[in-house]
């Protein structure tokens, strides 16, 4: 595979709900000299928890179709959503390990003129940035942020760790190091590794219950007086941002906690404007955070 360039897998939430994350990712990677190319005609990954709970073969075949697009481009895959990462990583692993299953999936793919030889690798963007190097990343910081942030790791970046091997799944440091590189302090809190509550089809079927998770985390962050929550997954991002409006409606509790995807935080530190990173389009205003940063 070509190095220094990736097939940029968009998924659903990133382009269709939070295009600011897409814009931020394109801009910061360009700044770093890492190429991102579109995977034209890609579909939903499909979502690991929900489609994986409907039909295993569908999950595999649609995942394999998406991977075949990157294979056709001769590039490895980069994702900015941990749900997408989980599906594409796991589908890829299973198809690499099980030739029988790969044949079965290819039989289906051949019906639409496609095939997948399982030659690509799948990366979460935080891994690519971390491999790029924390010290190297610091060289691109024009505006050290000086913020007190809470990292939300989410679930599917790290778990299951048996195959992903991203970091210690019960005491990760990967994203903390990335936020510290931008001059932020990463604050510890008890529910640091708790799920956002959205996954597994829970958000779509049982909204109030799913928001219990979100609310618990936000309560802890409010008590600790952090400037924002930093996520590394578009679905978690949606759950925390839009979820705060839903919590207001369903629980009558207001947090006003700005929610920032790491691609946006990096863009800010590189000196980009909040508007070009889509930060003025969040459900919860990022103003308190931006005021603290100054002009």
């Amino acid at each position, binding site marked *: 595979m070509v190095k220094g360039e990736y097939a940029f897998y968009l998924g659903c939430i990133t382009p269709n709900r939070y295009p600011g994350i897409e814009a931020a990712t394109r801009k910061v990677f360009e700044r770093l000299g890492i190429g991102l190319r579109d995977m034209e005609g890609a579909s939903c990954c499909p979502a690991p928890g929900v489609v994986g709970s*409907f039909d295993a073969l569908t999950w595999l075949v649609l995942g394999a179709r998406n991977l075949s697009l990157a294979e056709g481009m001769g590039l490895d895959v980069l994702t900015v959503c941990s749900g997408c990462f989980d599906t594409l990583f796991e589908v890829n692993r299973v198809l690499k390990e099980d030739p029988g299953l790969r044949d079965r999936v290819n039989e289906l793919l051949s019906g639409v003129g496609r095939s997948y030889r399982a030659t690509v690798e799948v990366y979460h963007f935080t891994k690519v940035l971390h491999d790029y190097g924390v010290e190297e990343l610091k060289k691109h910081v024009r505006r050290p942020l000086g913020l007190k942030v809470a990292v939300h790791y989410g*679930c599917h970046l790290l778990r299951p760790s048996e195959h992903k091997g991203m970091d210690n799944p019960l005491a990760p440091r990967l994203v903390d190091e990335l936020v510290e590189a931008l001059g932020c302090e990463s604050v510890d809190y008890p529910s640091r590794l708790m799920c956002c509550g959205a996954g597994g089809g829970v958000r779509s079927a049982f909204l109030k219950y799913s928001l219990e*998770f979100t609310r618990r985390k936000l309560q802890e962050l409010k008590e600790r007086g952090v400037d924002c929550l930093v996520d590394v997954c578009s679905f978690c991002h949606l759950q925390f941002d839009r979820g705060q409006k839903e919590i207001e409606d369903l629980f009558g509790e207001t947090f006003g906690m700005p929610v920032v995807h790491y691609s946006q935080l990096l863009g800010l530190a590189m000196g980009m404007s909040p508007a070009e990173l889509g930060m003025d389009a969040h459900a919860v205003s990022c103003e308190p955070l931006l005021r603290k940063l100054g002009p």
Partner: protein
Amino acid sequence: MKKEGRKGLRDLFSMQGEDPEFLRELRREIGEQEPDACFQCMRCTSGCDAFKFQKGYKPHQLVGFARLGLKERMVGSEVIWSCTTCSYCREVCPQRVAPVDVVKAARRLAVREGRAVEDHRKIAGYLIRTGHLVPVSETVKELREKLGLPGTPPTTHASQKALEEVGELLRRTGFARLLGEEKDG
């Protein structure tokens, strides 16, 4: 099940329950993991975030039901849909059981029996019609343009051919029939 020299003792360490057909099916669905090895230590449930907010959801209990072949307690119960698939249980299980995979397998059997949750049918419909569980909207298209991105993302949204490919695959896997609005599609 009796064991020689251990009168009346039940075999708690293997899946030899009351509904062998269900167990065979469940086992096929579970795939790589080994549910037999569970000894009900409850480490999964004690750290489960879903259990914190939904006391009826106990992963160790569901693995127990699976081993005993208690189909209705799994496939027939809404509680299996409380899992956010965070995979903490898989991470901490000393026996490498992965309760999350047992739960997902039970969900797939439920869906196959036409017991999908109604809201899930709705989002499955989006996948069939647009290639995305969460399709783009007109408002987001405007925002995309403001950000200097193409209004329509370069996905199945921008390619009829790609959308038809996805539709054809969803028909071939049986997904469209299982979860689509057209039952005979």
